[in-house]
């Protein structure tokens, strides 16, 4: 059973190339072997009458017809291969837009000497596991933080270069749950052989329950110095409404601005709709600073649910 759309596509195109290659090889090798066996020097063989002799440039022989036939037949085969390749490459290089893929299915992949980092839009980041849902199109933005790497997933027959300063998009649709090895395919230093990761394809429900969002709202959103605002972190997973798994655990708040929280950590309490939870802290700015305070809330996750983070800004009058 196929594991991904890219594998299906590769197998069919590679199959086309391979069948034609075998057909061509059989013809050419038969011809070569037949000629060698038939015309090898043996007592009965005739001396050709145009044998080149020392002291004379041999007369030219051979028909243009042979060239025309060779080139024409090859061209027919090659055009078929080009058409097949173009169809496939159009597909490879037409990734769905980030808005067209599922929640959590568009991931930034960054190569480092010698590991892969996977950064999700919800703030979750992992240096080993790329977790994706089964049956969905996955869009990866691939880049590098240091040297030239190449991001490849063994078994999925797809890879792309990870180049500093550039982002290459790669996409595929998962057909099979399980773990696949991610490996670097460009020599990048002494840790090249062990620069691996794991593609973890899980069923869609598990993924949706795992993939959480942290949203933060502060009220009032505009305060004076030394006036208090209540900041609430609202946690949810990405399941369709009513089917979610309620996040449990703590949320931690922080800000680079001058000010204080009544407590930096709060414990989540289940919300009214299934699969949501929230908790609040109080923030008090002590100086106007740049005129706003960015408040970040980080949910630490638990064994079944991913960490995530969110932020908002409070205007300080």
């Amino acid at each position, binding site marked *: 059973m196929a594991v991904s759309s890219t594998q299906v596509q590769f197998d069919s195109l590679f199959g086309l190339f391979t069948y034609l290659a075998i057909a061509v090889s059989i013809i050419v090798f038969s011809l070569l072997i037949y000629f060698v066996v038939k015309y090898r020097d043996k007592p009965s063989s005739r001396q050709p009458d145009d044998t080149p002799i*020392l002291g004379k440039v041999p007369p030219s022989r051979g028909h243009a017809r042979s060239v025309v036939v060779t080139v024409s037949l*090859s061209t027919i085969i090659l055009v078929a291969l080009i058409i097949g390749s173009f169809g496939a490459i159009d597909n490879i290089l037409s990734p769905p837009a980030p808005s067209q893929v599922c929640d959590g299915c568009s991931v930034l992949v960054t190569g480092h000497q010698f590991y892969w980092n996977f950064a999700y839009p919800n703030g979750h980041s992992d240096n080993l596991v790329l977790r994706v849902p089964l049956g969905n199109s996955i869009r990866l933005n691939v880049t590098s933080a240091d040297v030239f790497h190449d991001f490849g997933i063994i078994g999925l027959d797809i890879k792309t270069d990870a180049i500093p300063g550039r982002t290459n998009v790669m996409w595929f649709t998962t057909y099979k749950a399980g773990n696949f090895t991610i490996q670097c395919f460009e020599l990048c230093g002494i840790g090249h*052989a062990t620069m691996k990761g794991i593609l973890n394809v899980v069923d869609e429900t598990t993924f949706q329950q795992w993939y959480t969002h942290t949203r933060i709202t502060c009220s009032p959103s505009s305060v004076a110095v030394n006036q208090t605002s209540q900041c609430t972190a609202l946690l949810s997973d990405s399941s369709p409404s009513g089917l979610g798994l309620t996040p449990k655990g703590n949320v931690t708040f922080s800000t680079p601005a001058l000010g204080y929280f009544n407590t930096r950590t709060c414990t989540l309490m289940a919300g009214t709709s299934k699969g949501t939870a929230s908790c609040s802290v109080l923030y008090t700015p002590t100086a106007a600073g740049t005129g706003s305070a960015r408040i970040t809330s980080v949910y630490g996750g638990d064994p079944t649910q991913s960490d995530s983070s969110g932020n908002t800004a409070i205007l300080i009058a």
Partner: protein
Amino acid sequence: MGQRFAYSARRWLYTTNHKDIGILYIITSLFLFAAAGVLAITMRTQLSAPDNNVLTANVYNQFVTVHGLLMIFWVLSPLAFGFANFVIPLQIGCRDLAFPRLNSMSYWFFLFSGVMMILSFFFGAAPDLGWTLYSPQNTGQFSPAIGFNLGAGALILMVVSITMSSINFLVTMFKMRAPGLKLRYMSVFPWAILVTIFMMLYAFPSFLAAVVLLYVDRAFGTVYFSSIQGGSLLWDNVFWFFGHPEVYIVLFPAIGIIADIIPTFARRPLYGSKYVIGSLVAAALISFVVWGHHMFVTGIGIASTKLYTVTTIAVSLPFDVIVISLIETLGFAKLRLKAPALFALGAVANFIVGGITGVFLASVALDYALRGTYFVVAHFHYIMVGASIIGLIGGLYYWFPKITGRMYDERLAKVHFVLSMIGFQVLYFPMFLLLDMPRRIVTYSPQTDWGLLNLTATLGGLIFGGAQLLLFYNLYRSSRVGPPSGPNPWDAWTLEWALPSPPPPHDFDVIPTFQADGTIRFGSGPGLPNGLGHSNEIGNPNGSSISNKTSPLHHEGLSPWPVLMAFAAFIFFLGLTIGKPANPQPVSYQPFWPLIADGVILGIISLFGYSRETFTVHEDTHVESWPFKQVPNMKLGIWTFLGAEVIFFGVLIGSYFFVRTNDAAWPPAGSLFEIRNGFAMTLVLLTSSLTAIMALASARAGNRNGLIASLGGTLVLGAAFLYIKAGEWFSLGASGVFQNYSLPATSYFITTGTHGVHVFAGMCMTVYLLAKAIKGKYLHGDHTTLEHFGLYWHFVDIVWVFLFPLFYLI
């Protein structure tokens, strides 16, 4: 004994004879073949089982890199050019290459560059990022080892050697063919060499530019390759613009050999030889527009990848024609399956597999899966080992009797063939099945199913490597005790077989002439016997003794200067590259000045000796020299050299454009470099071209004072140019541009610096010319040197005409 040794050492060190140099090339490259092969077998041993510990990742990466570099640059090409050196002058009926001392210098540069590459192991670490040296890993930040600098220096020396060699062969083949020898009378081997030379001339300058840019980045902290705007893709473009033609550069000589061997042993003329030659030319041309297929997965855009898919797939067509023609040659033949023929046929078989799998990789869609896997490794080894090395070994057996005068052991050679072919398939075919295994990994996990295929490949490697011992043994032993071969053991038709084996130092007593019907005649005699005879008379066509006045002189043609000059360049580059890091961030290196000084002094001495030496070059036969009929050898050589320089500067300017288009924040014209300075330099340099023309005119008119004055003027104007330039550099340095190289500063310093070095070299030539002019030279029709200098000087000025607007005005 001691005296004989001294004589023999002197002969091999100082020789300028093309046959001696050919032998030196062949022996050196075979030695390096063994060395690079040992690296390969060690790596295969490491990979024979998962989680193996024979090599650490650090050592493995060095081995994988140096193995590739050595095999490509120091084995495949030089082995082919060893044959070319020995055989081409014989095949085209001349007594040596156009510039014998330059030829000797090419060899010594090649040898010292190889030594330098191997030395890199002993300075920290040899280059360790694959032969493609991808950026930005090649910068000082990621590869700080001094050994990498040595590697870069070795590559520069190697390119210098290749450039000298290509110019030499090009002039020889266009200017020195025997009377009546039309290009279309040449067999495929000389044609393949000719096409290879053109590819080398236009591909290697791009590589040189890449390595120079890289070296300057490493040594002085400029940022072409460490910047995001340049970086990986700039390197990819300049490297692969060279890199793909390079694949054909190492392949074509082998195809030429195969296409000469097969007809000889089949006893029939090559089928469709003009189509074979046309195909070589076509493939060479297309090879310059396919480099993007090495960058399919870098994200260069859908339109580009489609275009490169079409060009790359199209390049297979000429090779189809070549393979089919070779096979058709066998029809109604009387094929003698001697070792050269076996190796040629084996190479064709491997080439078919390598070529067909190349079409897979030409498809951008498949490349998205196959890139960086063992499928790629299998493919290019089928070409480079299966076709090139196997074909070249065929050439080794083919010309061994000509070179040594003795026959190799045919039975041993056949065993060698069988083991080589079996070992080769067992070694490389399993790699096609390792579709998922990344290249260049030191080890792999036991959880993969790669173990068995890798073990098989390793066993094949041991068979293939072991088989080559038979080759070395056979060559060594047969060169001493093999039975005499006679002049034409294979009944071949090309001209080298008309000479005794080994040919006398001066090759031809009488230069042969080609008649309109393709008959070859020696002197006014009745021509050759029908070539079936083995009598010595063929070797000595009209029985005359050495009659040409240049021949005895050439027999003695020893010159100590080429080897000294190469040695000077070697220690100069060693001094430049073995210096300790001067600065950790950004990494830069302090050169080792004593060695540099020694190199410069020795270089000046040998240059002086070289130019003072009376060395007669035969320029006796160039009747048929289309399309350069009216052009003297030296001038053609300089034109060719300047052609290579055009590519070199083209790549420098192209790199500037590349980073400039990628950099949104380029300072506006006039803000960084003073237009006034640029204008002044332009004016000065253009005036100096005028004085250079005046110098030539004065020399023609026999006006000594005019000559001295205008040469002096040229010198002063050159100095004025460099003075303004230096002033600009110093003021930019004072304003801090030196300290934090931005891309504008990087491109400016490197491009104008390289141009400045060219101006300086021109001034050195002017000093030399001035000294001679004061002694009264050049006034009596002997002004060709002035003309050559003028060509160079005008070229350097024209380059500036491009640089001025690019850096100052836009």
